[in-house]
């Protein structure tokens, strides 16, 4: 199980980072989602991988599943889900407003420069 969990975190992270480095917002957002999935699974693993064990430590128990990482993951899921929604709205807004979905703002600068030239004339 360790191999499956570790390699899935690795694959999700590497694909996520590749997509985050893309030029347009859509792949970047998909990459961000993959990264947040990776970190959620990673947080699960931080409490050690345990199967079929009770979740809370009691007297006389040797093995237990740590419940805290699950609470952390729940918080992380809620936050990352909300954030992804926000960034989708922002990306849509900037796409509809500026007519392209590039992540960088170089064209904005160029646009300002052109306007300034026109104003100078």
């Amino acid at each position: 199980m360790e191999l499956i969990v570790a390699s899935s975190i690795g694959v999700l992270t590497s694909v996520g980072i590749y997509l985050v480095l893309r030029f347009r917002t859509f792949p970047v957002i998909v990459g961000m989602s993959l990264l947040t999935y990776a970190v959620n699974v990673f947080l699960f693993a931080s409490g050690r991988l345990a199967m079929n064990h009770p979740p809370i430590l009691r007297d006389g128990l040797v093995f237990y599943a740590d419940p805290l990482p699950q609470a952390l993951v729940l918080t992380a899921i809620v936050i990352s889900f909300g954030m992804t929604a926000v960034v989708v709205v922002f990306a849509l807004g900037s796409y509809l407003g500026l007519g392209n979905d590039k992540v960088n703002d170089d064209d904005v600068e160029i646009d300002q420069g052109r306007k300034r030239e026109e104003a100078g004339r």
Partner: protein
Amino acid sequence: MSHWIVLPVVLPAMLAAAMTLLARYHAGVERALSLAGLTAFLALALGLAWQAGDGTVTIYQLGAWQAPFGIVLVADRLSTYMVLLLAILSLLVMLHAIGSGWDKRGRHFHPLFQFQIMGIAGAFLTGDIFNLFVFFEVLLIASYGLLVHSGGAKRVRAGTQYVLYNLLGSTLFLFALGTLYAETGTLNMADLAGRVAMIDPGASASIRVAAVLLLLVFAVKAALLPLHFWLPAAYSQAPGPVAALFAIMTKVGAYAIIRIYTLVFPPDLEVTAGLHEVWLLPLALISLAIGMIGVLAARSLDRLVAFAVVGSMGMVMTAIGLMSEAGLTAALYYVAHSTFATAALFLLVDIVGQRRGAGARIEGGAPMVGGPLLGGLFFASAIAMAGLPPLSGFLGKLLILDAAYDSTLIAWIWTVVLGSSLVAVVGFARAGSTVFWKPQQVAKGMDDLEAEQHISEADRDSRGKSAPALPVVAVGGFVALLAAQTIFAGPMTDYMRATVDQLMRPGAYVSTVLDTPGKEISYGHYEDEAGYDESGSSEEGGH
């Protein structure tokens, strides 16, 4: 147990919710509530700072659970100082926002502002590192809304970058926290301090990874090079008062670095040795240099101030990177100075942009209403930001230069700090003389009548037809604070020294957090009815 400590978090949260529900269609009520709330917040912050001033550490156990199991809020000198800074900043910024009418140019400015304050105050006060993450998210969510306040495609584009960058930072933060938890089994800062110290330096690979990841996350927040790319676009596109409020957001990163790297990974810890001298200090010097070069290269005033933020954060981080008592004292002094100077400049740029036909671009244009006064305020703020005598920036730099004596990088620190000051002076002088002097010369060359016509024309050109006084009062307040910080530099540095002393000897902090008893935790009864009754009665006992 004092409940006052949780109020800086609860008050803005409740107020924001109440404003959204009750007063969203009544701008006047919203403004009054907002101002009242911020005044109460300032009183609270003053009270907490007074309480922590004699060196006592007070904690608040949320839900009355004892520390490593429950979340605690901790009020010591450093956190109350930062909350006080936030309270002063937010009140003056709100005066500007109301005076300039920014709050009416979009929906929900006041609730978002309150949520932002809640997040920042929580980040300063919390004693639990996962809770720090949550408060980071609270302040970021509010800042996304504030950044695109009043809309516009370019602002939304800058907002997209900003959200993406911070989302990436949050993911990194979670990776760091996961590593930290896997290695130590706790997320309470005081508990972490004890457990990290117990780790064998020979088997410390994971904890080193966690320490570096955390430093990266906080460096993103503090806009340290090369992680600063989000800042210039976001801050220059943000509405003026929002950019001024953001002046404290970069300081949240600086605060977190000071807190974590004195408490959890103290400078003399063998496991993370070299993190400060080898990585933090050189990067801070590079940010300082690049920030001030950016000031020289900027083509508009808002971008100029944004790069000045990068530079002044570089200065703060240089002082932090020294990780000595003198260095941290200088850093804490400079944090207040940098917050006020940045806020003053952002507000000024906003006023100038409103009143001039040419907006915030650095080029000559028609003279604006109240030009000489604004020019004078810009002059004072620029002197402070560039670190010239007589204002507080100069004293802050002196403290940093003085603290650098023990460092091996002293030659580099002196060269970069002094060289960057020169570059900043040239940059600010160029911008100030172009914006404030050139138009006056044009006006002087004409007849009085013509000049008058010119002014009225400029008046018509400028977007805000009237020239409200309240925004200028807010800027004046910041300049007065900078002057006060200069005059009372002696007592203030004494207090900073005491603060650093508390940071460097965290015994009282750790014992207060961990040894304060909380609610009884009972094992094994959670399935039967008696267990529930027992926890109910012990909750009453806790109060």
